[in-house]
């Protein structure tokens, strides 16, 4: 029943925002909203590995870029079927290509998920700073590969010319916004399902004490691979529609520092122990950054993130969720009757203590 209300609530909130933005008739709301939703997916994906398992990933931008560049590669293939396919296959290829954005998202997720699996496999024995450095190295290696891969534009970048309108929806940005809205609900649902499952408990034991987890029968290496794969796949899915959003993709924008920093800062500020944390952090930071972009300058975005991160690490190391969870959990009456506060604590998976 709780899950039903969760999905219903998510869809209603999304539909209300979409209807409001359409009523205002301002496409900028869709542009800004897309970025915020994209950060919700990225922050939630980062939190699956970083928050639930305690493995800090500095290479979020790499997974995001892999999703983006898989779309660029497939888009280019689709636009030049006669050039890249032998005559015998061109007919079949034209039936399939060019692919639509939802399909590209699935493919981007699979490619990034596989890279996540590979990264997990290669870094299985690393922990703490060593794992973080390895993920940073992954981003550098992948960026170097993309810069030197002419097919996707190399260092010059690649243009993606998107259609102006989509039937039944309207402007293409509205279509992209809707897709990212669905994707963010999917990402949050995945995180929420993980938290409430055996997998979530397994991840928590990995974060707390791997040696004790193994002694309790938790297959830690297998679970870490699952976490790196799911996290990588969701980041790639967030990146797949990005070339269509931005129109011109170059390595420095796809591998931008902002993605790596925001993916970490948003869950840290929101709270890493519940699916609510990355959502709240991404909404807060994403909206502040969008407001700052139009009122001051986009150059101050990273400064804002940095200052907020420092502030939260000092004042509220468990993030916003950590600040309110004791209050929420304290809502249960002594006779066991549930109140709205304790119900919310259960809904948001605010377990005892830091969880």
């Amino acid at each position, binding site marked *: 029943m709780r899950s039903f209300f969760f999905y219903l609530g998510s869809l209603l909130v999304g539909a209300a925002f979409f209807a409001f933005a359409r009523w205002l008739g301002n496409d900028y709301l869709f542009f800004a909203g897309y970025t915020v939703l994209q950060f919700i997916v990225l922050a939630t994906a980062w939190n699956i590995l970083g928050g639930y398992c305690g493995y800090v990933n500095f290479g979020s931008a790499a997974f995001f870029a892999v999703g983006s560049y898989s779309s660029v590669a497939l888009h280019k293939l689709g636009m030049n079927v006669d050039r890249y396919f032998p005559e015998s296959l061109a007919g079949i290829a034209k039936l399939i290509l060019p692919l639509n954005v939802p399909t590209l998202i699935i493919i981007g997720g699979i490619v990034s998920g596989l890279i996540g699996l590979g990264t997990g496999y290669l870094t299985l024995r690393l922990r703490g700073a060593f794992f973080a450095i390895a993920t940073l190295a992954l981003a550098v290696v992948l960026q170097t590969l993309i810069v030197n891969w002419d097919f996707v534009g190399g260092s010059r970048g690649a243009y993606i010319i998107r259609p102006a309108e989509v039937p039944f929806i309207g402007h293409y940005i509205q279509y992209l916004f809707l897709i990212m809205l669905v994707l963010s609900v999917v990402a949050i649902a995945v995180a929420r399902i993980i938290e409430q499952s055996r997998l979530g408990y397994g991840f928590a034991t990995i974060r707390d*004490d791997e040696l004790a987890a193994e002694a309790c*029968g938790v297959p830690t290496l297998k679970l870490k691979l699952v976490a790196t794969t799911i996290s990588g796949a969701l980041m790639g899915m967030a990146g797949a529609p990005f070339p269509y959003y931005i129109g011109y993709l170059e390595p420095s924008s796809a591998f931008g520092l902002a993605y790596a920093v925001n993916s970490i800062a948003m869950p840290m500020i929101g709270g890493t122990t519940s699916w609510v944390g990355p959502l709240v952090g991404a909404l807060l930071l994403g909206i502040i950054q969008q407001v700052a972009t139009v009122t001051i300058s986009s150059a101050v975005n990273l400064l804002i993130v940095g200052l907020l991160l420092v502030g939260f690490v000092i004042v509220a190391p468990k993030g916003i969720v950590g600040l309110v969870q004791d209050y929420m959990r304290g809502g249960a009456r002594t006779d066991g009757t549930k109140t709205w506060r304790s119900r919310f604590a259960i809904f948001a998976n605010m377990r005892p203590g830091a969880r």
Partner: protein
Amino acid sequence: MAASLLQVENVGKRFGGFVALDGINLEVAQGERVGLIGPNGSGKSTLVNCMCGTLQNETGTVQFDGHAMNGLAAHQRTHRGMARSFQLPRPFPTLSVAENLRIPLLFTAHTRSGRHLTQAESEDRCQELAGLVGLAPKLHRLPRDLTQVEMRKLELARAIAADPKLLIADESMAGLSQSEVGDIVELLIKLNERGITIIMIEHIMRAVMAFSQRLVVLVSGKKIADGKPDDVVNNPEVIGAYLGQ
């Protein structure tokens, strides 16, 4: 003598140039209560780590319940029925006492029964385990709210939750008062009476003598004595190792 549950043959382990275990042989029968003692640095914990898969032995073999354990990861050995508690309690700090007890139920209990426990069964089992060690009133508290002895009890209860055939209790009584030591010994004997074979590693001789049916002594990575507790503590070699020649 009952059937052999654990067979450790010629197990050796080095850390660089330091020989931690030098050809250890040990056999433990089903249902036995074995005390494992030795001065600090004698290799007790290394032997436990090699048996449980936390460390891999370089020479020799470990057989458990008729199966070779060499090369198996720690969690796989837990699935086969070998559980341990740690010298320093290692509860999962962000999980409540009940959740700590739930972890082995979620990940291990099904491996031998063939099915996962339902939520209700799992909650009942947590209650039962917490009741067994006297932690029922603190089931929904965090480990940080527990006293030292409660932490040790949680450590033991979590090991038992894996439904083990063999429990290895690594210095479960360090730092406890006399009455608390008595509580833990009583608990371990109670568990043994339920059919769990137990190896207890301990420095507190009063507890070792009260608990053990057999005593094994390690010194500098070698086994120097193995027999009835009264005979072993009067063995001149053991006295020499503890008190100096």
